[in-house]
Protein backbone atom coordinates (compact mmCIF):
# COMPACT_ATOMS: atom_id res chain seq x y z
CA UNK A 1 0.00 0.00 0.00
CA UNK A 2 2.87 2.26 0.87
CA UNK A 3 4.28 1.46 -2.54
CA UNK A 4 1.17 2.63 -4.38
CA UNK A 5 1.88 6.27 -3.58
CA UNK A 6 5.49 5.84 -4.61
CA UNK A 7 4.40 4.23 -7.87
CA UNK A 8 1.87 6.93 -8.65
CA UNK A 9 4.52 9.63 -8.70
CA UNK A 10 7.03 7.44 -10.46
CA UNK A 11 4.62 6.46 -13.20
CA UNK A 12 3.81 10.09 -13.96
CA UNK A 13 7.08 11.89 -13.39
CA UNK A 14 9.72 9.16 -13.56
CA UNK A 15 10.98 10.42 -10.22
CA UNK A 16 11.64 8.36 -7.12
CA UNK A 17 10.24 10.52 -4.36
CA UNK A 18 12.20 9.61 -1.24
CA UNK A 19 10.20 12.16 0.72
CA UNK A 20 7.31 9.74 0.36
CA UNK A 21 8.73 7.74 3.27
CA UNK A 22 8.68 10.85 5.44
CA UNK A 23 5.12 11.64 4.38
CA UNK A 24 4.17 8.13 5.42
CA UNK A 25 5.62 8.87 8.87
CA UNK A 26 3.84 12.20 9.00
CA UNK A 27 0.51 10.54 8.20
CA UNK A 28 1.03 8.27 11.17
CA UNK A 29 1.90 11.15 13.50
CA UNK A 30 -0.93 13.38 12.26
CA UNK A 31 -3.38 10.59 12.90
CA UNK A 32 -1.91 10.00 16.32
CA UNK A 33 -2.27 13.68 17.19
CA UNK A 34 -5.81 13.85 15.84
CA UNK A 35 -6.98 11.02 18.05
CA UNK A 36 -6.11 13.39 20.85
CA UNK A 37 -3.30 11.29 22.20
CA UNK A 38 -0.53 13.01 24.09
CA UNK A 39 3.08 13.13 22.97
CA UNK A 40 5.89 11.88 25.14
CA UNK A 41 8.61 13.26 27.34
CA UNK A 42 11.04 14.63 24.80
CA UNK A 43 10.82 17.24 22.13
CA UNK A 44 9.16 20.62 21.98
CA UNK A 45 5.63 19.29 22.16
CA UNK A 46 6.17 17.13 25.23
CA UNK A 47 3.04 16.15 27.08
CA UNK A 48 0.86 18.26 24.86
CA UNK A 49 -2.16 16.94 23.03
CA UNK A 50 -4.76 18.31 20.68
CA UNK A 51 -8.07 19.20 22.33
CA UNK A 52 -9.93 17.06 19.82
CA UNK A 53 -10.47 13.33 20.06
CA UNK A 54 -11.40 11.95 16.69
CA UNK A 55 -12.17 8.25 16.33
CA UNK A 56 -9.23 6.45 14.76
CA UNK A 57 -10.63 5.98 11.26
CA UNK A 58 -11.73 9.60 10.92
CA UNK A 59 -8.37 10.73 12.27
CA UNK A 60 -6.63 8.53 9.71
CA UNK A 61 -8.57 10.10 6.85
CA UNK A 62 -7.96 13.68 8.03
CA UNK A 63 -4.33 12.81 8.76
CA UNK A 64 -4.00 11.45 5.23
CA UNK A 65 -5.35 14.69 3.79
CA UNK A 66 -2.86 16.71 5.83
CA UNK A 67 -0.12 14.43 4.53
CA UNK A 68 -1.41 15.13 1.02
CA UNK A 69 -1.10 18.86 1.65
CA UNK A 70 2.46 18.40 2.85
CA UNK A 71 3.16 16.50 -0.38
CA UNK A 72 1.86 19.50 -2.34
CA UNK A 73 4.21 21.82 -0.49
CA UNK A 74 7.09 19.44 -1.21
CA UNK A 75 6.25 19.42 -4.92
CA UNK A 76 6.21 23.22 -5.03
CA UNK A 77 9.44 23.64 -3.10
CA UNK A 78 11.56 20.65 -4.03
CA UNK A 79 10.40 19.41 -7.43
CA UNK A 80 8.80 22.11 -9.54
CA UNK A 81 11.78 24.51 -9.54
CA UNK A 82 14.01 21.68 -10.73
CA UNK A 83 11.52 20.58 -13.37
CA UNK A 84 11.16 24.08 -14.74
CA UNK A 85 14.88 24.27 -15.19
CA UNK A 86 14.87 20.93 -16.96
CA UNK A 87 17.25 19.54 -14.38
CA UNK A 88 18.58 16.01 -14.29
CA UNK A 89 16.13 13.57 -12.60
CA UNK A 90 18.99 12.59 -10.33
CA UNK A 91 18.82 16.06 -8.78
CA UNK A 92 15.14 15.56 -7.95
CA UNK A 93 16.07 12.33 -6.26
CA UNK A 94 18.68 14.05 -4.12
CA UNK A 95 16.30 16.91 -3.43
CA UNK A 96 13.59 14.52 -2.23
CA UNK A 97 16.09 12.73 -0.04
CA UNK A 98 16.96 16.09 1.51
CA UNK A 99 13.30 16.81 2.18
CA UNK A 100 12.92 13.41 3.81
CA UNK A 101 15.83 14.08 6.17
CA UNK A 102 14.45 17.50 7.08
CA UNK A 103 10.99 16.14 7.87
CA UNK A 104 12.36 13.31 9.96
CA UNK A 105 14.47 15.73 11.97
CA UNK A 106 11.61 18.16 12.48
CA UNK A 107 9.49 15.31 13.81
CA UNK A 108 12.25 14.28 16.15
CA UNK A 109 12.68 17.87 17.31
CA UNK A 110 8.98 18.28 17.99
CA UNK A 111 7.94 14.99 19.52
CA UNK A 112 11.10 13.09 20.29
CA UNK A 113 12.13 9.67 19.18
CA UNK A 114 9.85 7.41 21.24
CA UNK A 115 7.51 4.81 19.95
CA UNK A 116 3.87 5.75 20.03
CA UNK A 117 0.90 3.44 19.99
CA UNK A 118 -2.60 4.34 19.01
CA UNK A 119 -5.37 4.06 21.59
CA UNK A 120 -6.49 0.54 22.13
CA UNK A 121 -8.87 -1.05 19.64
CA UNK A 122 -8.66 1.47 16.82
CA UNK A 123 -11.14 -0.57 14.81
CA UNK A 124 -13.80 -0.61 17.48
CA UNK A 125 -15.26 -3.91 18.50
CA UNK A 126 -13.93 -6.04 15.66
CA UNK A 127 -12.06 -9.07 16.93
CA UNK A 128 -8.29 -8.60 16.80
CA UNK A 129 -7.86 -11.69 14.66
CA UNK A 130 -10.01 -13.73 12.34
CA UNK A 131 -9.58 -17.47 11.91
CA UNK A 132 -9.10 -18.58 8.32
CA UNK A 133 -8.30 -22.17 9.17
CA UNK A 134 -10.59 -25.17 9.12
CA UNK A 135 -11.51 -27.14 12.20
CA UNK A 136 -8.57 -27.71 14.50
CA UNK A 137 -6.11 -26.20 12.03
CA UNK A 138 -6.23 -22.57 13.12
CA UNK A 139 -4.84 -19.89 10.78
CA UNK A 140 -5.47 -16.63 12.57
CA UNK A 141 -4.96 -13.42 10.59
CA UNK A 142 -4.95 -10.11 12.43
CA UNK A 143 -7.91 -7.88 11.56
CA UNK A 144 -5.60 -4.92 11.07
CA UNK A 145 -3.84 -6.75 8.30
CA UNK A 146 -7.08 -7.61 6.57
CA UNK A 147 -8.10 -3.95 6.78
CA UNK A 148 -4.78 -2.84 5.31
CA UNK A 149 -5.00 -5.35 2.51
CA UNK A 150 -8.61 -4.46 1.74
CA UNK A 151 -7.90 -0.73 1.70
CA UNK A 152 -4.88 -1.30 -0.58
CA UNK A 153 -6.92 -3.25 -3.08
CA UNK A 154 -9.70 -0.65 -3.07
CA UNK A 155 -7.21 2.19 -3.57
CA UNK A 156 -5.50 0.28 -6.35
CA UNK A 157 -8.79 -0.33 -8.15
CA UNK A 158 -9.84 3.30 -7.79
CA UNK A 159 -6.51 4.63 -9.04
CA UNK A 160 -6.38 2.23 -11.95
CA UNK A 161 -9.90 3.18 -12.96
CA UNK A 162 -9.12 6.86 -12.56
CA UNK A 163 -5.93 6.73 -14.63
CA UNK A 164 -7.36 4.65 -17.46
CA UNK A 165 -10.97 5.71 -17.76
CA UNK A 166 -11.37 9.36 -16.76
CA UNK A 167 -10.43 12.46 -18.68
CA UNK A 168 -8.14 13.69 -15.92
CA UNK A 169 -6.50 10.30 -15.67
CA UNK A 170 -5.86 10.20 -19.40
CA UNK A 171 -4.46 13.71 -19.27
CA UNK A 172 -2.15 12.60 -16.48
CA UNK A 173 -0.94 9.69 -18.59
CA UNK A 174 -0.37 12.13 -21.41
CA UNK A 175 1.86 14.17 -19.09
CA UNK A 176 3.67 10.99 -18.12
CA UNK A 177 4.44 10.26 -21.75
CA UNK A 178 5.22 13.73 -23.01
CA UNK A 179 4.62 16.80 -20.87
CA UNK A 180 5.33 19.28 -23.66
CA UNK A 181 2.76 17.73 -25.95
CA UNK A 182 0.29 17.56 -23.08
CA UNK A 183 0.56 21.31 -22.59
CA UNK A 184 0.04 21.81 -26.34
CA UNK A 185 -3.29 20.03 -25.90
CA UNK A 186 -4.33 22.57 -23.29
CA UNK A 187 -3.52 20.42 -20.26
CA UNK A 188 -2.37 22.38 -17.22
CA UNK A 189 0.54 20.16 -16.36
CA UNK A 190 1.63 21.84 -13.13
CA UNK A 191 -1.88 21.63 -11.71
CA UNK A 192 -2.28 17.94 -12.49
CA UNK A 193 1.16 17.13 -11.13
CA UNK A 194 0.14 18.89 -7.93
CA UNK A 195 -2.96 16.70 -7.81
CA UNK A 196 -0.76 13.64 -8.29
CA UNK A 197 1.38 14.65 -5.35
CA UNK A 198 -1.69 15.26 -3.22
CA UNK A 199 -3.12 11.83 -3.99
CA UNK A 200 0.21 10.16 -3.53
CA UNK A 201 0.68 11.95 -0.21
CA UNK A 202 -2.79 10.95 0.91
CA UNK A 203 -2.23 7.32 0.08
CA UNK A 204 1.17 7.50 1.80
CA UNK A 205 -0.25 9.19 4.88
CA UNK A 206 -3.13 6.74 5.13
CA UNK A 207 -0.80 3.78 4.88
CA UNK A 208 1.34 5.35 7.61
CA UNK A 209 -1.68 5.56 9.91
CA UNK A 210 -2.88 2.04 9.14
CA UNK A 211 0.51 0.39 9.42
CA UNK A 212 1.10 2.41 12.57
CA UNK A 213 -2.06 0.86 13.97
CA UNK A 214 -0.74 -2.58 13.07
CA UNK A 215 2.58 -2.31 14.85
CA UNK A 216 3.20 1.07 16.44
CA UNK A 217 4.81 4.27 15.28
CA UNK A 218 8.42 3.38 15.72
CA UNK A 219 9.88 6.87 15.98
CA UNK A 220 10.65 9.43 13.30
CA UNK A 221 12.51 6.90 11.18
CA UNK A 222 9.38 4.77 11.03
CA UNK A 223 8.76 5.48 7.36
CA UNK A 224 12.34 5.29 6.18
CA UNK A 225 12.67 1.58 6.87
CA UNK A 226 9.43 1.05 4.98
CA UNK A 227 10.71 3.37 2.29
CA UNK A 228 13.55 1.08 1.36
CA UNK A 229 11.32 -1.95 1.30
CA UNK A 230 8.74 0.03 -0.66
CA UNK A 231 11.41 0.61 -3.26
CA UNK A 232 11.93 -3.14 -3.52
CA UNK A 233 8.20 -3.56 -3.90
CA UNK A 234 7.83 -1.13 -6.78
CA UNK A 235 10.76 -2.66 -8.61
CA UNK A 236 9.15 -6.04 -8.05
CA UNK A 237 5.89 -4.76 -9.49
CA UNK A 238 7.53 -3.06 -12.43
CA UNK A 239 8.32 0.62 -11.91
CA UNK A 240 5.23 2.72 -12.39
CA UNK A 241 2.74 -0.12 -12.52
CA UNK A 242 0.05 0.28 -9.83
CA UNK A 243 -1.46 -3.22 -9.79
CA UNK A 244 2.13 -4.46 -9.98
CA UNK A 245 2.94 -2.56 -6.80
CA UNK A 246 0.23 -4.43 -4.91
CA UNK A 247 1.33 -7.82 -6.24
CA UNK A 248 4.93 -6.88 -5.46
CA UNK A 249 3.91 -6.04 -1.89
CA UNK A 250 2.22 -9.39 -1.40
CA UNK A 251 5.17 -11.30 -2.87
CA UNK A 252 7.69 -9.46 -0.73
CA UNK A 253 5.51 -9.98 2.35
CA UNK A 254 5.37 -13.71 1.67
CA UNK A 255 9.10 -13.90 1.00
CA UNK A 256 9.77 -12.24 4.34
CA UNK A 257 7.30 -14.54 6.09
CA UNK A 258 9.32 -17.54 4.96
CA UNK A 259 12.39 -16.28 6.76
CA UNK A 260 12.89 -18.72 9.67
CA UNK A 261 12.33 -17.19 13.10
CA UNK A 262 15.96 -17.50 14.18
CA UNK A 263 17.06 -15.40 11.18
CA UNK A 264 14.36 -12.76 11.59
CA UNK A 265 16.98 -10.02 11.82
CA UNK A 266 17.80 -10.68 8.17
CA UNK A 267 14.32 -9.83 6.94
CA UNK A 268 15.53 -6.68 5.22
CA UNK A 269 18.29 -8.65 3.54
CA UNK A 270 15.60 -10.84 2.00
CA UNK A 271 13.85 -7.76 0.65
CA UNK A 272 17.00 -6.62 -1.05
CA UNK A 273 17.96 -10.05 -2.29
CA UNK A 274 14.56 -10.16 -3.97
CA UNK A 275 15.15 -6.68 -5.38
CA UNK A 276 18.53 -7.74 -6.73
CA UNK A 277 17.25 -10.93 -8.33
CA UNK A 278 14.35 -9.06 -9.84
CA UNK A 279 16.60 -6.50 -11.49
CA UNK A 280 18.69 -9.31 -12.94
CA UNK A 281 15.89 -11.52 -14.16
CA UNK A 282 12.80 -9.43 -14.87
CA UNK A 283 13.59 -5.71 -14.85
CA UNK A 284 10.17 -4.94 -16.37
CA UNK A 285 8.43 -6.25 -13.23
CA UNK A 286 6.25 -9.21 -12.40
CA UNK A 287 3.29 -8.14 -14.50
CA UNK A 288 5.23 -5.96 -16.89
CA UNK A 289 5.74 -6.26 -20.59
CA UNK A 290 9.03 -5.31 -22.12
CA UNK A 291 8.91 -1.63 -23.05
CA UNK A 292 8.03 -1.03 -26.69
CA UNK A 293 11.04 0.37 -28.41
CA UNK A 294 10.23 2.24 -31.58
CA UNK A 295 12.98 2.94 -34.03
Amino acid at each position, binding site marked *: MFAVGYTLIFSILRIINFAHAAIFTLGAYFTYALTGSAFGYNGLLKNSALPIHLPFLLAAVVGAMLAGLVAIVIERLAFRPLRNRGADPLLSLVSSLGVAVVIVNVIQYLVGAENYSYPAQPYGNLPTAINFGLGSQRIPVRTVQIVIFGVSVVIMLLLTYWLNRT*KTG*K*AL*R*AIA*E*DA*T*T*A*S*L*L*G*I*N*TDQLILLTFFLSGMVGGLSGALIGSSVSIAGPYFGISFGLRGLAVIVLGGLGDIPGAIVGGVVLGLAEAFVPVQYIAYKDAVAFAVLFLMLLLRPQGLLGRAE*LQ*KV
Partner: protein
Amino acid sequence: MRTVQPLLDIQKLFVNYDGIQALEDVTLAVYPGEIVTLIGANGAGKSTTLRSISRLIKPHSGEMLYGGRSLSHLRAHEVVRLGIAQVPEGRRVLTRQSVFDNLLLGAYTRNDTHAIAEDIDRHFTTFPRLAERRNQLAGTLSGGEQQMLAIARALMSRPKLLLLDEPSLGLAPIMVQEIFTIIQRLHASGVTILLVEQNATLALKYADRGYVLEAGRITMSGPASSLLTDERVKQAYLG
Protein backbone atom coordinates in the same frame (compact mmCIF):
# COMPACT_ATOMS: atom_id res chain seq x y z
CA MET B 1 -3.18 48.14 -47.82
CA ARG B 2 -5.23 45.75 -45.79
CA THR B 3 -7.98 46.95 -43.55
CA VAL B 4 -8.46 43.64 -41.73
CA GLN B 5 -6.70 43.15 -38.41
CA PRO B 6 -4.15 40.33 -38.42
CA LEU B 7 -5.15 37.25 -36.46
CA LEU B 8 -1.59 36.83 -35.33
CA ASP B 9 0.79 39.73 -35.13
CA ILE B 10 4.39 39.19 -34.08
CA GLN B 11 6.55 42.23 -33.57
CA LYS B 12 10.30 42.38 -33.03
CA LEU B 13 10.60 38.97 -31.43
CA PHE B 14 13.97 38.10 -29.90
CA VAL B 15 14.59 34.62 -28.48
CA ASN B 16 17.70 33.38 -26.71
CA TYR B 17 18.27 29.65 -26.56
CA ASP B 18 21.02 28.51 -24.21
CA GLY B 19 22.81 31.78 -24.72
CA ILE B 20 22.53 31.63 -28.50
CA GLN B 21 20.43 34.16 -30.36
CA ALA B 22 17.78 31.93 -31.93
CA LEU B 23 15.45 34.63 -33.24
CA GLU B 24 16.43 38.18 -34.00
CA ASP B 25 13.91 40.91 -34.65
CA VAL B 26 11.29 38.63 -36.18
CA THR B 27 8.18 40.48 -37.30
CA LEU B 28 5.41 38.64 -39.09
CA ALA B 29 1.66 38.69 -39.44
CA VAL B 30 -0.99 36.11 -40.28
CA TYR B 31 -4.38 37.35 -41.50
CA PRO B 32 -7.64 35.48 -40.98
CA GLY B 33 -8.18 32.73 -43.55
CA GLU B 34 -4.60 32.71 -44.84
CA ILE B 35 -2.03 29.98 -45.19
CA VAL B 36 1.28 31.56 -44.35
CA THR B 37 4.43 29.54 -44.63
CA LEU B 38 7.73 29.98 -42.90
CA ILE B 39 10.57 28.45 -44.87
CA GLY B 40 14.26 28.23 -44.22
CA ALA B 41 17.14 25.86 -43.57
CA ASN B 42 17.50 23.55 -40.60
CA GLY B 43 18.14 25.58 -37.46
CA ALA B 44 17.04 28.87 -38.97
CA GLY B 45 14.50 29.33 -36.16
CA LYS B 46 11.29 28.10 -37.77
CA SER B 47 10.30 25.75 -34.96
CA THR B 48 11.48 28.27 -32.40
CA THR B 49 8.96 30.74 -33.79
CA LEU B 50 6.11 28.26 -33.43
CA ARG B 51 7.27 27.22 -29.98
CA SER B 52 7.29 30.85 -28.92
CA ILE B 53 3.73 31.35 -30.11
CA SER B 54 2.60 28.27 -28.17
CA ARG B 55 4.51 29.64 -25.16
CA LEU B 56 6.70 26.57 -24.83
CA ILE B 57 9.66 28.93 -24.75
CA LYS B 58 9.79 32.43 -23.37
CA PRO B 59 11.00 35.10 -25.77
CA HIS B 60 13.57 37.54 -24.53
CA SER B 61 11.68 40.52 -25.89
CA GLY B 62 9.09 41.46 -28.45
CA GLU B 63 5.33 41.29 -28.60
CA MET B 64 2.93 38.64 -29.86
CA LEU B 65 -0.68 39.64 -30.38
CA TYR B 66 -3.45 37.18 -31.16
CA GLY B 67 -6.68 38.88 -32.21
CA GLY B 68 -5.30 42.03 -30.61
CA ARG B 69 -4.62 40.25 -27.33
CA SER B 70 -1.10 39.82 -25.96
CA LEU B 71 0.17 36.28 -25.49
CA SER B 72 3.15 37.37 -23.45
CA HIS B 73 1.85 36.45 -20.01
CA LEU B 74 0.07 33.25 -20.86
CA ARG B 75 1.17 29.71 -20.22
CA ALA B 76 1.17 27.00 -22.90
CA HIS B 77 -2.13 25.42 -21.92
CA GLU B 78 -3.90 28.80 -21.85
CA VAL B 79 -2.91 29.59 -25.43
CA VAL B 80 -4.83 26.50 -26.56
CA ARG B 81 -7.99 27.85 -24.92
CA LEU B 82 -7.69 31.02 -27.00
CA GLY B 83 -7.88 28.96 -30.18
CA ILE B 84 -4.27 28.33 -31.17
CA ALA B 85 -3.40 24.67 -31.70
CA GLN B 86 -0.02 23.32 -32.70
CA VAL B 87 0.89 20.10 -34.48
CA PRO B 88 4.43 19.74 -33.21
CA GLU B 89 7.41 18.58 -35.20
CA GLY B 90 7.78 14.82 -35.22
CA ARG B 91 4.00 14.46 -34.66
CA ARG B 92 4.31 13.56 -30.98
CA VAL B 93 1.19 11.45 -30.75
CA LEU B 94 0.68 9.80 -27.37
CA THR B 95 2.02 6.40 -28.34
CA ARG B 96 0.78 4.60 -25.24
CA GLN B 97 -2.84 5.69 -25.65
CA SER B 98 -5.41 4.65 -28.22
CA VAL B 99 -6.19 6.63 -31.35
CA PHE B 100 -9.58 7.43 -29.86
CA ASP B 101 -8.10 8.69 -26.60
CA ASN B 102 -5.59 10.83 -28.47
CA LEU B 103 -8.51 12.59 -30.15
CA LEU B 104 -10.37 12.84 -26.87
CA LEU B 105 -7.39 14.53 -25.25
CA GLY B 106 -7.24 16.93 -28.18
CA ALA B 107 -10.59 18.18 -26.90
CA TYR B 108 -9.27 18.52 -23.35
CA THR B 109 -10.15 22.21 -23.20
CA ARG B 110 -13.78 21.55 -24.16
CA ASN B 111 -16.64 20.35 -22.02
CA ASP B 112 -19.38 19.81 -24.61
CA THR B 113 -19.33 16.01 -24.51
CA HIS B 114 -21.91 15.66 -27.23
CA ALA B 115 -20.20 17.93 -29.76
CA ILE B 116 -16.85 16.27 -28.97
CA ALA B 117 -18.28 12.88 -29.91
CA GLU B 118 -19.63 14.38 -33.13
CA ASP B 119 -16.27 15.92 -33.97
CA ILE B 120 -14.50 12.61 -33.40
CA ASP B 121 -16.97 10.91 -35.74
CA ARG B 122 -16.43 13.62 -38.32
CA HIS B 123 -12.64 13.17 -38.19
CA PHE B 124 -13.10 9.43 -38.52
CA THR B 125 -15.10 10.04 -41.68
CA THR B 126 -12.39 12.33 -43.06
CA PHE B 127 -9.61 9.95 -42.00
CA PRO B 128 -10.98 6.44 -42.54
CA ARG B 129 -7.57 4.97 -41.77
CA LEU B 130 -7.83 6.36 -38.26
CA ALA B 131 -11.35 5.00 -37.88
CA GLU B 132 -10.12 1.48 -38.69
CA ARG B 133 -7.50 1.82 -35.98
CA ARG B 134 -9.51 3.68 -33.36
CA ASN B 135 -8.73 1.23 -30.55
CA GLN B 136 -5.11 0.64 -31.49
CA LEU B 137 -2.31 2.30 -29.56
CA ALA B 138 -1.18 5.36 -31.48
CA GLY B 139 2.40 4.08 -31.32
CA THR B 140 1.50 1.26 -33.68
CA LEU B 141 0.45 3.60 -36.51
CA SER B 142 2.61 4.38 -39.51
CA GLY B 143 4.25 7.78 -39.81
CA GLY B 144 1.61 9.11 -42.17
CA GLU B 145 -1.22 7.86 -39.99
CA GLN B 146 0.42 9.45 -36.96
CA GLN B 147 0.62 12.74 -38.82
CA MET B 148 -3.08 12.51 -39.66
CA LEU B 149 -3.83 11.73 -36.03
CA ALA B 150 -1.72 14.67 -34.85
CA ILE B 151 -3.59 17.02 -37.17
CA ALA B 152 -7.01 15.62 -36.23
CA ARG B 153 -6.07 15.86 -32.57
CA ALA B 154 -5.12 19.51 -32.93
CA LEU B 155 -8.42 20.19 -34.70
CA MET B 156 -10.32 18.69 -31.77
CA SER B 157 -9.76 21.91 -29.84
CA ARG B 158 -11.57 23.74 -32.69
CA PRO B 159 -8.71 26.16 -33.28
CA LYS B 160 -8.93 29.37 -35.27
CA LEU B 161 -5.21 29.28 -35.88
CA LEU B 162 -3.38 26.04 -36.62
CA LEU B 163 0.40 25.92 -36.32
CA LEU B 164 1.90 23.10 -38.38
CA ASP B 165 5.53 22.20 -37.76
CA GLU B 166 7.13 20.19 -40.58
CA PRO B 167 4.09 18.03 -41.38
CA SER B 168 5.86 16.34 -44.30
CA LEU B 169 8.98 15.38 -42.38
CA GLY B 170 9.95 11.75 -42.84
CA LEU B 171 6.89 10.78 -44.86
CA ALA B 172 6.72 8.91 -48.16
CA PRO B 173 6.04 11.19 -51.15
CA ILE B 174 2.50 9.87 -51.61
CA MET B 175 1.79 10.59 -47.93
CA VAL B 176 3.23 14.08 -48.24
CA GLN B 177 0.80 14.73 -51.06
CA GLU B 178 -2.08 13.45 -48.95
CA ILE B 179 -1.12 15.64 -46.00
CA PHE B 180 -1.03 18.72 -48.21
CA THR B 181 -4.42 17.86 -49.63
CA ILE B 182 -5.68 17.78 -46.05
CA ILE B 183 -4.07 21.16 -45.36
CA GLN B 184 -5.77 22.61 -48.41
CA ARG B 185 -9.11 21.23 -47.28
CA LEU B 186 -8.66 22.75 -43.82
CA HIS B 187 -7.86 26.07 -45.40
CA ALA B 188 -11.02 25.84 -47.48
CA SER B 189 -13.03 25.19 -44.33
CA GLY B 190 -11.81 28.48 -42.89
CA VAL B 191 -8.93 27.53 -40.57
CA THR B 192 -6.03 29.98 -40.60
CA ILE B 193 -2.72 28.18 -40.93
CA LEU B 194 0.88 29.03 -40.15
CA LEU B 195 2.96 26.33 -41.82
CA VAL B 196 6.61 25.62 -41.17
CA GLU B 197 8.21 23.51 -43.88
CA GLN B 198 11.55 22.40 -45.17
CA ASN B 199 9.96 21.35 -48.42
CA ALA B 200 9.79 24.94 -49.64
CA THR B 201 8.47 24.24 -53.13
CA LEU B 202 5.47 22.39 -51.85
CA ALA B 203 4.80 24.85 -49.04
CA LEU B 204 4.92 27.86 -51.36
CA LYS B 205 2.60 26.14 -53.83
CA TYR B 206 -0.11 25.84 -51.23
CA ALA B 207 0.47 29.02 -49.24
CA ASP B 208 -0.85 32.53 -49.81
CA ARG B 209 2.22 34.28 -48.44
CA GLY B 210 5.63 33.25 -47.26
CA TYR B 211 8.49 34.38 -45.05
CA VAL B 212 12.08 33.25 -45.41
CA LEU B 213 14.03 32.77 -42.18
CA GLU B 214 17.82 32.76 -42.26
CA ALA B 215 19.84 32.31 -39.08
CA GLY B 216 17.04 33.71 -36.94
CA ARG B 217 16.21 36.70 -39.14
CA ILE B 218 13.51 37.21 -41.70
CA THR B 219 15.32 38.01 -44.92
CA MET B 220 12.47 37.94 -47.42
CA SER B 221 8.71 37.95 -47.43
CA GLY B 222 5.90 38.30 -49.91
CA PRO B 223 3.20 36.49 -51.82
CA ALA B 224 4.03 32.81 -52.14
CA SER B 225 3.81 32.91 -55.93
CA SER B 226 6.49 35.59 -56.21
CA LEU B 227 8.78 33.85 -53.68
CA LEU B 228 8.40 30.71 -55.77
CA THR B 229 9.90 32.48 -58.77
CA ASP B 230 12.42 34.60 -56.87
CA GLU B 231 15.96 33.81 -58.02
CA ARG B 232 17.50 33.95 -54.53
CA VAL B 233 14.84 31.70 -53.01
CA LYS B 234 15.18 29.33 -55.95
CA GLN B 235 18.91 29.07 -55.48
CA ALA B 236 18.84 28.57 -51.72
CA TYR B 237 15.75 26.47 -51.08
CA LEU B 238 14.09 25.21 -54.19
CA GLY B 239 17.12 23.45 -55.63
